[in-house]
Every structure is written in structure tokens, then in C-alpha cells.
């Protein structure tokens, strides 16, 4: 046990970005995941947690927030159609929330999978990842139907009386855009997560802002395209 503690102390004293052979030694000898050792090196006793987080997060957060502001401008461009068809207006915040939520879930779960060694080099063969994709796809479909119906019902209460045709179109927009965005979220999370992880940084600090901002922006673009196609 004292050997183990001594080895861990050595690992935590390593400078960041330095990939010391002792990491592999500790992994082999004590059976601790390399990812766990890497995490301890990132946020271990000799690191300044707040400094690491701020330094790694600040740029991507600013970028993500500015991208969303651009999304706000594009939303303004479709103002006329949105004001004419109230359920579409009601749909937007809920859809944006949902897409952001799935981005958060997929990114954080994928990062935890990486740290726990559940996703290796051949990520496409990971049964954990397959399972996550299936769960998100099913959840997304159910929730899209829910918000499509809810937006029409709230719209009806607000004084907008949609025809059955309009109701189906609103539903189709909700379902189609969400299913497309699930694919986008997974692609961004996997590609981005692996790239960041291989650069020996914590994907938690980057992946959620990147995934949600890309998904939010594309959500508005896909939404605008589908509104243009259906109405």
C-alpha cells in the first residue's frame, strides 16, 4: 500500500502534458485505469483546479456564446412566419432546450466513458456507445412528438386554431429536425471528444459548449429550412 501511495504521489507531481512512463507502470502494477490516473494528474493535489478550468474553458465558452448570438439574429429573420404560426414560436425554446440537453447528456456520458475506459480506439465497436445512441434516439423521438403536440395545444389555447394539416406539419418539423440533430450531436461529441482527449485535455471543459452551440445553431438553420419547405 505504501508503494501504491508513493507511486500515486509521483504521478500527481508530474507536470501537465508530460506523459511519463510511470503512468503505464502504475496502470499495469495496480490495475488503475490510465484515464483515472490522467484525471488525477489534471485535477490532482498539485494542480490549481479553478485555474485549469478557466484557462481551458474560457475561449470555447466565448465562442459558443457568440455563435448563439448569431443564431438569435437568424431567428429574427424568420419573425413573420413565426408570428403567423404560433405553435412554431412556442416550439423554438423547447426544441432549443431539448437539443442542448441531448448535447449535454451525450458529451458528459461520452467523456465519463472515456475516463472509465469504456470507449477505446475502436469507438464504433463500443457496445456502451451503441446503447447510448439507441437511448438518445428513442428519447428524442418520444420528446419530439410530445413537444409537437404540446406546442399545438398551447397555440390553440393562445387563440391560434391550427388545421389538421398544420398540426401534422408542426409535428413533422419537430420530429425531423430532432432526429437530424441527434446525428449531429453524436458526430460532434465523438470527433470532438476523442480529439480533445488525445490532446490530453479534459473533454468536460470543451465538449458541452462545442456540442450545444453547434447543435443550437444547426437547430435554427434546420428549423428555418423545414419551415420554408413545409409552409
Amino acid at each position, binding site marked *: 500500500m505504501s508503494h501504491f501511495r508513493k507511486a500515486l504521489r509521483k504521478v500527481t507531481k508530474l507536470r501537465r502534458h508530460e506523459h511519463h512512463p510511470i503512468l503505464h507502470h502504475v496502470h499495469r502494477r495496480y490495475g488503475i485505469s490510465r484515464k483515472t490516473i490522467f484525471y488525477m494528474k489534471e*485535477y490532482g493535489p498539485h494542480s490549481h483546479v479553478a485555474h485549469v478550468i478557466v484557462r481551458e*474553458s*474560457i475561449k470555447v465558452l466565448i465562442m459558443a456564446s457568440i455563435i448563439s448570438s448569431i443564431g438569435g439574429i437568424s431567428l429574427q429573420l424568420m419573425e413573420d412566419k413565426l408570428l403567423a404560426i404560433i405553435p412554431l414560436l412556442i416550439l423554438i425554446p*423547447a426544441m432549443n432546450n431539448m437539443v442542448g440537453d441531448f*448535447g*449535454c*447528456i451525450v458529451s458528459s456520458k461520452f467523456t465519463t466513458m472515456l475516463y472509465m475506459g469504456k470507449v477505446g480506439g475502436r469507438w464504433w465497436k463500443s457496445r456502451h456507445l451503441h446503447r447510448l445512441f439507441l437511448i438518445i434516439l428513442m*428519447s428524442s423521438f418520444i420528446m419530439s412528438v410530445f413537444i409537437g403536440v404540446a406546442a399545438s395545444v398551447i397555440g390553440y389555447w393562445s387563440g391560434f386554431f391550427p388545421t389538421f394539416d398544420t398540426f401534422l406539419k408542426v409535428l413533422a418539423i419537430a420530429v425531423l429536425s430532432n432526429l437530424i440533430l441527434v446525428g449531429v450531436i453524436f458526430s460532434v461529441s465523438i470527433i470532438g471528444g476523442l480529439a480533445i482527449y488525445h490532446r490530453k485535455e479534459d473533454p*468536460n471543459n470543451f465538449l458541452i459548449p462545442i456540442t450545444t452551440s453547434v447543435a443550437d445553431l444547426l437547430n435554427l438553420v434546420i428549423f428555418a429550412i423545414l419551415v420554408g419547405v413545409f409552409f
Partner: protein
Amino acid sequence: MSFRKDFDEIVTAEMASTTGGLAAGTLLAFITNQIELIPALLIFLPGFLEMRGNISGSLSARLSSALFLGAARPRVKKNRILKGNVIAAMLLVLVVSVILGAVAFFANWVFFGIYDYRIIAIALIAGILSNIVEVPVAVLTTFWLFRHGHDPNNIMGPYVTTTGDISSIISVFIAIVII
């Protein structure tokens, strides 16, 4: 964790989240008149909501990773990783809010020819107000979920974006009233 448990947790959290999203949209619709008085708010608001969700979401995700790896315990006192995370979240919100306010100010000036720097002050005040509510909510809920055997990763994403949207819109409204 089982497929069924993960699925149930995600769908339940999403139900709450999208309902919250609908509520946030309704709330926003009610204060549209006030928002229209300051045109730059429409440029600022999506970025502000995004920032709130990102910072709280990352905070919860980092804490979840630390909890699962055993690097931190689900308690508030004597928790070095939590302390660092909270300080970082506070700093990030302040810095990014001011930058977003500045971006909205310049966009307003360039595109609409309106020179109104109040948006920067509104951004800063709204950032501070939303932080006071959102950071404790994110931390305490993550710990509570972990202690009760749930995976915070499944629930916290939807949870913080919903509470973040509502608290952000209310914070912006209060900031407008203060300014």
C-alpha cells in the same frame, strides 16, 4: 446502469426540461414589450442562455466525473475540487457576460446605429444574479442525485438548462428594472 434505468431517467428529465422550455418561452413572451425597448437584448439573450447552460452543464459534468472516479466526495465542506469548480464557474460567468454585453453593444451600434451601453451593465448584473441561484442549484442537485444512486450525467444536463433558462430570463428582467 441498465438500459431501462438510463432511458427512464433521460425521458423523465427531458419531460421536465421541455415543459420548462415551454414555460420559459411563455415567460419570454410576457416580457417581450420590455425587451423590445432595448433592441440589443435580442442579440444578447440567446448567447446568455447558452452560456448559462454551458457553464452549469460543464460544472455538473466535471463534478460527476470526480464523484464517479472517487476524486471528490458529495459534500460541500472540505472539498477542494468543488471549491475550484465553483470559483471557476463564478469567474467564467462574469467574464463571458461582460463580453456578450460588449458584443451586443457593438452589434447594436453597428447594425442599428444605437449607442446604448446599458446592455453591458444589464449583462453583468444578470450574470451575477443568475450565478447566485444557478451554481448552488447545480452543485447541490448533482450531489443529491449521486448520493441517491442516480447518474447525474443523465439528469443534470436537462435540469440545469431548464433552471438556467428560467433564472436567466428572470435575472435579465430584474437587471432591466435595476438599470
